[in-house]
């Protein structure tokens, strides 16, 4: 003998349950194939269910008036194993069918959903992007660079040509992290553009070497003129000096990465530059003398206890240095928002003159240009400018062992009329310590 279960069928296209109206058999009864077992009432009709098995009834599931769900056991029948195949059909499968449920309801949707099938990772192409796949980190032309709109916007806002950013995402996709890496200089820029491509020159498109005129005159106007005048004024009034140092910025990179993973900070553009800005403001609090200017007309040095933090921005119009007022008062989130807004406006060309006035301290980030350091000229009226090079993997000696770390070179140009090397070195070392161990410094604020 073997045991067969007759499940409540869906007798009317999509029904979910039925009520037992009359049992026509009892436990112990012998039943023949198609012998009426029970009358059931559904939302559509009352119908008689015939036995799918030949055998002896061993259990009835439910009393008259009980409602049984479609697909749940209705009656158990003991079947003789040696019965001819015609009289004992294959059992109605008690286990859920995986495909569809002809006669067994709309599907097993009242059970806990689980995932049955998963696409193999290597084959996700059917409805995926159709652009031919460049190999990871390969150079792709601007027209075919693969990225997503928010990342394109992000790169554009930061003045980065996304076609020069190697993509590490799926199928060579340029991700936000790739752009960040490019911005912070951990990825070397790809070689210069082909000689037949136009290049940029302080806000102007220059014809390619081969096709442009042999000699070309560009009027010094607008941003170019402002830049020229400022540099001349600064360079020939303030005697410049500089200090620099190499810093293990790995903790800063780790911090930025962990902050970006927080859902609450998802919409904030975090980059190492935010930490640098906080570090410089923190240094100014410790060494107020650095946030100063030399008033030659009155033979005074003016110390200011409020930082208007200038950020040199490479814009389509040329170099601009708008500032963040009261930057020393900002916490990490506000600093990030302020920097984002400043850069966005600068790229969009909507920076107002007021936003460029009154700078007290400055940062220039040359990392995205793929260089380690620079000796910047002071913006007029200021006494120090911090330069940040690219953050790149480099050997670093720690605990007498060579390890690979994210290393950055930072430097400080200063007005040597009133700032000596000791003060400048103190400020720069402070910034360096901050970047090497940002968490305690941030917590102390």
């Amino acid at each position, binding site marked *: 003998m073997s045991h067969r279960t*007759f*499940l409540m*069928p*869906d*007798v*009317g*296209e999509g029904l979910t349950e039925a009520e037992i109206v009359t049992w026509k058999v009892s436990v112990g009864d012998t039943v023949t*194939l*198609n012998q009426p077992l029970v009358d059931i009432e559904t939302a*559509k*009709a*009352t*119908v*008689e*269910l*015939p036995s*799918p098995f030949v055998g002896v009834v061993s259990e009835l599931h439910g009393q008259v008036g009980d409602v049984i769900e479609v697909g749940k056991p209705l009656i158990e029948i003991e079947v003789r194993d040696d019965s001819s*195949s*015609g*009289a004992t*059909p*294959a059992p*109605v499968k008690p286990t859920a069918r995986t*495909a*569809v449920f*002809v*006669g*067994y309801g709309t599907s097993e949707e009242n059970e806990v959903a689980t995932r049955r*099938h*998963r*696409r*193999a990772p290597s*084959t*996700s*192409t*059917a*409805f995926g992007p159709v652009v031919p796949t460049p190999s990871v980190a390969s150079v792709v032309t601007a027209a075919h660079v693969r990225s997503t709109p928010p990342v394109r916007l992000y790169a554009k806002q930061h003045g980065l040509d996304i076609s020069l950013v190697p993509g590490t995402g799926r199928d060579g996709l340029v991700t936000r992290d790739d752009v960040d890496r490019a911005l912070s200089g951990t990825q070397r820029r790809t070689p210069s553009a082909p000689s037949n491509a136009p290049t940029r020159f302080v806000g102007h498109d220059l014809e390619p070497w081969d096709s442009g005129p042999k000699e070309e005159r560009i009027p010094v106007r607008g941003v170019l003129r402002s830049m020229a005048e400022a540099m001349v004024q600064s360079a020939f009034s303030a005697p410049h000096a500089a200090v620099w140092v190499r810093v293990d910025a790995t903790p800063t990179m780790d911090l930025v990465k962990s902050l970006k993973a927080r859902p609450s900070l998802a919409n904030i553009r975090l980059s190492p530059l935010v930490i640098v800005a906080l570090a410089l403001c923190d240094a100014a609090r410790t060494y107020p003398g650095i946030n100063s200017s030399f008033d030659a007309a009155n033979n005074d040095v003016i110390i200011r206890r409020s930082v208007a933090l200038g950020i040199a921005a490479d814009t389509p119009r040329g170099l601009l240095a708008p500032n963040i007022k009261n930057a020393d008062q900002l916490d990490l989130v506000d600093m990030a928002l302020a920097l984002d807004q400043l850069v966005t406006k600068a790229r969009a060309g909507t920076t107002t003159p007021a936003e460029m006035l009154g700078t007290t301290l400055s940062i220039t980030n040359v990392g995205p240009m793929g260089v380690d350091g620079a000796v910047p000229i002071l913006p007029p009226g200021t006494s120090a400018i911090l330069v940040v090079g690219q953050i790149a993997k480099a050997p670093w000696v720690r605990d007498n062992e060579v390890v690979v770390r994210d290393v950055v070179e930072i430097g400080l140009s200063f007005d040597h009329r009133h700032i000596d090397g000791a003060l400048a070195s103190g400020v720069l070392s402070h910034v360096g310590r901050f970047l090497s161990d940002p968490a305690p410094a941030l917590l102390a604020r």
Partner: protein
Amino acid sequence: MNESELVQLVSPEGERVRHPDYESSLGVDEIFGFYRDMTIIRRICNEATSLQRQGELALWAPVQGQEAAQIGCGRAMTEKDFGFPTYREHGIAWCRGVPPLNMLRLFRGVSQGGWDPQHYRFSTPTIVLGDQTLTAVGYAMGIQKDGTDEASVAFFGDGASSQGDVSEAFVWAASFDAPVVFFLQNNQWAISEPSTLQTKIPLYRRAEGFGFPGIRVDGNDVLAVYEVTKRALENAHEGGGPTLVEAFTYRMSPHTTSDDPTRYRTDAEVEVWKHRDPIERTKALLVREYKYKNSHFEEVREEAEAIALKLRDDLLSLPDPDPTFIFDNAYAAPHPLIDDGRRDMIELGVSSVTS
């Protein structure tokens, strides 16, 4: 029903009835053959209903009560004719040689058709009411253009007669003298709606208004249906154009297994028609006229039983198609969306097909 309007050759009691225009050409072996056909198709139908109640078919459209209409017509059709059925023409399918398992494929949910329509010269079911009547007219126009002596048969019911397509089919068949027989089984009920909602006059009389002959036959008299259909087909074969044959019958069962006829018709009405049961009528004729004995009928019953059990076994061992089957015949030529879909399904692992 006005009895005088209807061609009948055997009474419900199994007595011969004289008709001025028609007489039976059949011998006893053929009549017994029709009895066998009707008995087997009813048994297949009952097995299918049970299988639906046991969760093995999604749906079933029973033919009980209409066996004489279908066997009479199906046996009158010759090999050269081509039929366009609805979803209830199981008796016709039987006569065309369609294996019973194939009749169940649609209702099992493994196919939207079920058999090779060219092989059996019998199309797969059309479910949208009346659509196939225009198809049949078009097929008949093709016969005409080819200059052969075939005919097509359009099957439909009293309900479908209200569809615009059916009237359009009548217009076209008449205008082009198409060799088509419109075989209308008036089973009195379109699900819950009586045929009186579809028509104020006997349906066969509609043909006259379109310009071709219509005739009503007792659809529960297999001999009469055979003769009337045979003559309509011969007329078409000979270039005589269309005929509307209204087989006046009764759907003894629910419309489908999803239906509940107790909501809209009385037991008394069903009892009246039980008295006109087509199988009992033929049996009565065989007993009365040819002295057939129970052993004859028992032999047929056993054969029908064996066919039904084999059908059950075959159905329960019918494999489900691979899900990628859905991509196989949507287009004749390669199609990129089909390729995409098939690849997607295989990649997701829903299909057992891996390449």
